[in-house]
């Protein structure tokens, strides 16, 4: 019993803080989403589910939801694929050296380099990529294309390309973290396993797909959930990089951006809260689905 008292005393303060600063604001947001509060005075009017019915017919809202769907599928896939490739090269790619699996030459250096983007603030990354994606040949990318005689590409002004360009930035920034995460996973694999496989004549391809991938599957799932949640954000980069904040033609807008705009530009805090509630349910649904999938995998293994 004394042991539980000890644990309890450590838990109670975080739980109280969590209730005050996380749960209670959420609950109040649910209430505000049922009002037409404009964020300025203290007399919001209760309007029931009007905000939500309006949400159903809001093109911009659905555009944002579609973009989250694209991000949710493509961004984790690409990030994880690149991160796995890099971390495999960094940890196992060099083959066996004096009884230990090693990465390619200079892997320590690469590991630091890959992590660099993670250290930069998102706003800094945004400003950096403004210069990289600039649509005329003063942009870094278009300048390079210009050198080989290719016309400028409208990275952020082409409605078909803009969202993918921004996704590229998110991936560029995120990969380093997952390289480190997966490297830790790979380091936990006993090197005898690799050596045995290598002695049996397994190449790098085989080592990766038959040994590494199955043994760090749990870590990949964690990465997947993290990336999925990140796919519901993208606010800062869209805000800084996109044409007219979410354009052109709403091609890049995301829910957090619309929430911000609805609240602070349109002064419609009730409607913005309704969007927030919608985002809450989208995130919860994603998290629940991911956890379910994870559980099934465990049973199978």
């Amino acid at each position: 019993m004394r042991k539980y008292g000890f644990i309890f005393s450590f838990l109670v303060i975080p739980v109280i803080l969590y209730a005050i600063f996380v749960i209670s604001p959420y609950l109040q947001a649910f209430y505000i989403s049922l009002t037409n509060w404009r964020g300025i005075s203290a007399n919001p009017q209760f309007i029931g589910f009007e905000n939500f019915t309006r949400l159903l017919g809001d093109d911009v809202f659905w555009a944002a939801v579609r973009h989250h769907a694209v991000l949710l599928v493509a961004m984790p896939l690409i990030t994880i694929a690149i991160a796995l490739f890099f971390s495999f090269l960094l940890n196992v790619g060099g083959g066996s050296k004096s009884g230990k699996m090693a990465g390619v030459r200079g892997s320590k250096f690469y590991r630091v380099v890959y992590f660099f983007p993670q250290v930069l603030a998102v706003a800094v990354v945004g400003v950096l990529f403004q210069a990289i994606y600039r649509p005329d040949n003063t942009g870094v990318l278009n300048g390079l294309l210009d050198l080989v005689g290719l016309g400028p590409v409208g990275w952020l002004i082409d409605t078909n390309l803009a969202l993918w360009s921004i996704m590229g930035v998110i991936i560029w920034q995120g990969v380093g973290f997952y390289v480190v995460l997966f490297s830790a996973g790979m380091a936990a694999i006993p090197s005898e396993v690799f050596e045995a496989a290598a002695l049996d004549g397994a190449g790098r391809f085989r080592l990766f797909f038959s040994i590494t991938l199955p043994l760090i599957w749990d870590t990949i799932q964690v990465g997947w959930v993290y990336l999925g949640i990140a796919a519901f954000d993208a606010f800062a980069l869209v805000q800084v990089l996109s044409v007219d904040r979410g354009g052109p033609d709403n091609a890049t807008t995301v829910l957090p951006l619309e929430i911000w705009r609805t609240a602070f530009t349109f002064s419609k805090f009730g409607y913005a809260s309704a969007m927030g509630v919608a985002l809450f349910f989208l995130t919860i649904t994603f998290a629940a689905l991911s956890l379910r999938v994870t559980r099934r995998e465990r049973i199978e293994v």
Partner: protein
Amino acid sequence: MTNSAGSPKDITRRQMLRRIGLTALVAGPAGSMLAACATGGSSSEASPSAAPSAAATSAQNPFGVKADAPLEVVIFKGGLGDSYAKDVHEPMYKKTYPNATIKHVATQQIAQTLQPRFASGDVPDFIANSGTDLMDNGALQSEGQLLDLTPLFEAPSIDDPSKKIKDTILAGTVESGLIAGKPFILNYVSSGYGLWYNTKLFQEKGWAPPKDFTEFKAVCEKIKAAGLTPYAYAGKNASYYQYWMILITAAKVEGNQVLLDIDNLVDGAWLKDSVKQSAAAWAEIGKYIDKSYEGLIHTEVQTRQNQDKVAFYPSGSWLENEQKSNTPKTFEYAVAPTPSLTPSDKMPYEAIRVASGEPYIIPAKAKNTAGALEYARIMLSKEGAKGFTEKSGSLTVVKGAAEGLSLSPGIKSLNDAIGAAGDNIVTYSQFENWYKELETELRKQTNSLMFGRISADEFCANMQKKADSVKADSSITKQNRTV
């Protein structure tokens, strides 16, 4: 509810803080910005004190300013800078009231800085509510947060106490700040809008600013042949520069009524022939813009104009001052009125949009409203206005305040254009401040139109759809104007 000792007020204030905070949290990933706001609000712990006992009013002190009451001035630090307040108006106030402490706050994000403070009741006394992130004045007024400025405009002028302030400023200034029939906004800066170009370059090449769209296309062809981009605006963050041109042309065709109808959300206002014709004509000019300009910000486009890569740039009178440090010796600003559409236009070619802009407001619940009114009266004195023009390079609404100042070439050219226009003044569009949703939609649709993704008909239909939805939205207080 009781009225005792301000405690109910306190509770509300705290509730409000909490609500602001929770919106931030729900927005979750939207994170930093919203959270920053929430913290901004909660740091203001001073309880709303009772209004300072007003001093007696007199001819010198028409609002009864308490000599030692502190004054907080929040200035949007954009194209106009903030030295006009710091180095001119605030010292002038200090001179009259040496015992008053003035707190000067400069920000580029008015809404993020001030919205939480409005919600919590701890508001500054005087605000330059400008910039991309200005607060919605219509929303502020409908919540009773703005001070009626009638006493200001009725007060005696500092320069000539026998005159009321409203008689010392340009006609239309008071009207431009009306919300629900009362003046809540002081629009202090007189801005002219048109096509800006480099006189030196145009003289050298033998080009002339176009008087109508046929000439416009012809000169664009010539400019294009010379290897320049004939016309450009910044699609990334300044598409409003372009929609002003579309609105001005529509007004030239039909008269100001079309702009009033758009502001008043009159059914079918965006579907009028004048708007359609204007949109179609401008879409033609859009073909001369290099696609890349949709992804550039206004300073990038302005710089390209200074490098003589762009011939015409649509903007307002602040442009020259904003570019002052980047303008090369080979560049001399001049402005031309927006071209006419057809000879049967209601307004002549010389017609130009001149409007009082840069809204200054006084919160109704400010602690020192008398001081804020006096501060505004100082701004509206000749000395205050002259200092403003010197520091910011922009003309004010105060009549004759620029006399004796040597004006820069661009401002001089604008002054001449305004003189030539006479009574043919294209009016300002109020919906930009009244209905931010409609304004945001217009930015998007303008880019789509000008960069060839939609037709003029689609442009009008999309705008009408948004106008209808704003009209149907019961949470938005509707405004009306007759002038």
